[in-house]
């Protein structure tokens, strides 16, 4: 099954390995690759933009046993996630949501990494990980509560081991690290994954998470979706070298993966999670991808970037490439795509209806959950608020 080209690639990779005196980390190898091709560091890629499977000796093993059904599963995940995302964008335009942060273009990074996780693993997302949420089984409709303004987080983090979205950039990297320190203390064999963006890489908290995780050898994977932009700022405003290299200086491996290649994201994340579970500590994965849409529905990207860039990335679409592969290399028939289309529409409808029928929050919710054990002032203010509310009905003479 392996082409000559693939074999050659494996050989050169192996010799690359021999050339490194330690040669134990993916980071090291990828970094060396970068040295010889300074223009763009080598990405781990298993599927070309055209949908051709290319071999990568280090990562092939992680997807070797994947079945056509599982491949279709990944495809389905990406399509449904994109459909959900489009629905949310539409709902925002219709005034049902106050804001939406679209993941358009980042489906492979999120589904690939999300499907690499075990149930016991724990996820710390930022605010754009709708695809990862999908993989964890969080009801998509629940994601919309905060964007509709009815809550700040509408799911129980422990039901699906998927923490709430975190808006303060970078904070969750430390939570993930602490959680992972706890996992290690418990002697559990699970891993933790922290998602963040290229912009977030500049925050002190992320650097401190690197330090703590390295020093305590915590089982955490830092999954950075480098979507090329932090609102209007290109990645070179955050770093002058490829981001995955950041890890080396903290003493753990970093690897750059084609973030639009769901197989490569799956493989690279699996490897990193396994390292973590084996007690080998943190890994930084940089998923090289693109934010196809605006930063959020409030943003206007025409002010700061041109169409060409978007067009070039369109050609690397994560869904199209897996579709091409499915059609060329598996027994996937049109029926699958048709059914998926129907399922997509049903999902869109379900989400739309769920949002529209979301109950307005109770006024007194303001005072709920400020504290777990209560607080005298909250009680006092709640009572005053109740009296104030009651004064209106009094006024109406009830």
């Amino acid at each position, binding site marked *: 099954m392996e082409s000559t080209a693939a074999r050659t690639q494996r050989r050169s990779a192996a010799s690359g390995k021999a050339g490194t005196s330690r040669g134990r980390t993916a980071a090291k190898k990828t970094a060396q690759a970068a040295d010889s091709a300074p223009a763009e560091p080598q990405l781990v890629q298993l599927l070309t933009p055209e949908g051709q499977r290319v071999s990568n000796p280090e990562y092939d093993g992680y997807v070797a046993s994947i079945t056509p059904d599982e491949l279709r599963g990944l495809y389905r995940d990406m399509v449904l996630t994109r459909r959900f995302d489009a629905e949310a964008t539409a709902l925002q335009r219709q005034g049902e949501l106050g804001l939406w942060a679209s993941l358009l273009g980042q489906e492979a990074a999120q589904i690939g990494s999300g499907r690499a996780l075990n149930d016991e693993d724990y996820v710390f997302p930022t605010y754009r990980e709708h695809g990862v949420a999908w993989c964890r089984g969080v009801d998509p409709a629940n994601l919309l509560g905060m964007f509709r303004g009815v809550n700040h987080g509408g799911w129980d983090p422990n039901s699906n081991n998927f923490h709430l979205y975190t808006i303060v950039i970078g904070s969750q990297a430390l939570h993930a690290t602490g959680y992972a320190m706890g996992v290690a203390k418990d002697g559990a064999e699970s891993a933790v994954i922290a998602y963040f963006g290229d*912009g977030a890489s500049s925050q002190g908290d992320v650097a401190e998470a690197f330090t703590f995780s390295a020093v305590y050898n915590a089982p955490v994977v830092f999954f950075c979706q480098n979507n090329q932009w932090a609102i209007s700022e290109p990645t070179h405003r955050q770093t002058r070298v490829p981001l995955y290299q950041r890890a080396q200086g903290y003493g753990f491996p970093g690897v750059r993966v084609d973030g639009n290649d769901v197989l490569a994201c799956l493989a690279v994340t699996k490897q990193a999670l396994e390292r973590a579970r084996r007690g080998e500590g943190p890994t930084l994965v940089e998923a090289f991808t693109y934010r196809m849409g605006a930063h959020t529905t409030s943003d206007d990207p025409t002010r700061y970037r041109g169409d060409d860039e978007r067009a070039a990335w369109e050609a690397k679409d994560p869904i199209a490439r897996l579709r091409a592969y499915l059609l060329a290399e598996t027994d996937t028939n049109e029926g699958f795509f048709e059914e998926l289309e129907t399922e997509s529409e049903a999902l869109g409808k379900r989400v739309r209806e769920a949002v529209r029928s979301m109950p307005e929050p109770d006024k007194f919710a303001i005072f709920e959950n400020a504290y777990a054990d209560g607080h005298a002032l*909250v009680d006092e203010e709640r009572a005053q608020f109740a009296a104030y509310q009651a004064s209106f009905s009094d006024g109406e003479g009830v």
Partner: protein
Amino acid sequence: MAVESVKARESLKTLAIAKAINESLRKALETDPKVVIMGEDVGKLGGVFRVTDGLQKDFGEERVIDTPLAESGIVGTAIGLALRGYRPVVEIQFDGFVFPAYDQIVTQLAKMHARSLGKVKLPVVVRIPYGGGIGAVEHHSESPESLFAHVAGLKIVTPSNAADAYWMMQQAIESDDPVIFFEPKRRYWDKDQVDTEAIPGPLHKAQVVRQGSDLTLVAYGPMVKLCQEVADVAAEEGRSLEVLDLRSVSPLDFDAIQTSVERTGRLVVVHEAPVFFGSGAEIAARITERCFYHLEAPVLRVGGYHAPYPPARLEEEYLPSLDRVLDAVDRALAY
């Protein structure tokens, strides 16, 4: 037509608050080559509220600097630039994102002048769009002014209208002290006449924006407009409210409040920030001390509750509203 009135007309513009700040920054960039603008997305995008719109295009990337996404880094490097003789005006994208910079603001920016026995000055302006009422997600609607006012070495100001926005920004940039400049984001689009050749009053003085005799309403930033509306409604009910726009939270213009309260005998303070440990507490405590024999009712406070800022669909209940302020006015007048 006399020459002077032509000139007056030229310098009179109708501007929204955001645009007034934009013009003020532009003027500062033109006037003083040491002024630099820094922050996330302040360049091509012009900031998420477009307050710095067009400035990078006209003054270049060396004057209007897009920074890495790190607030401590922004304020910390602004301090360094100030030490080198620059006058940085930094933007924090939203109120809830100033806290990563809190250490640099509180332990360095606020104290370096004193630490150096006056040898070093840090003319840094930290612009923070603040307050709620825009239906935003978490961390985008907070009013953290108290957390800065308690810290000596900082000055805290907040305009309520476009003319003040224009002139107070000029004055903040000219100040040799660090100034936290809170911008009432929900009023960014409110328009007003700005005379760009006026002679502005002192930065830290309150202004009586409406005269009255029964009770004094004190507010700043986004709440000034609300208090004016309250006064309108109260007037219909035959009550004469005086409205004071504080403009400055540190220092607070206690003299102005005192003068008013000595006449009205009653005071209600309104702010969006939580009441507990808010500005209203400081105002109530000091004015009660100063006007003990004048007050016919305790100073009442209307503000946020002691709970995290709620999701957007509850913010109207959380924020001071016309009815809530009127309710406090009624209670004060009932004494």
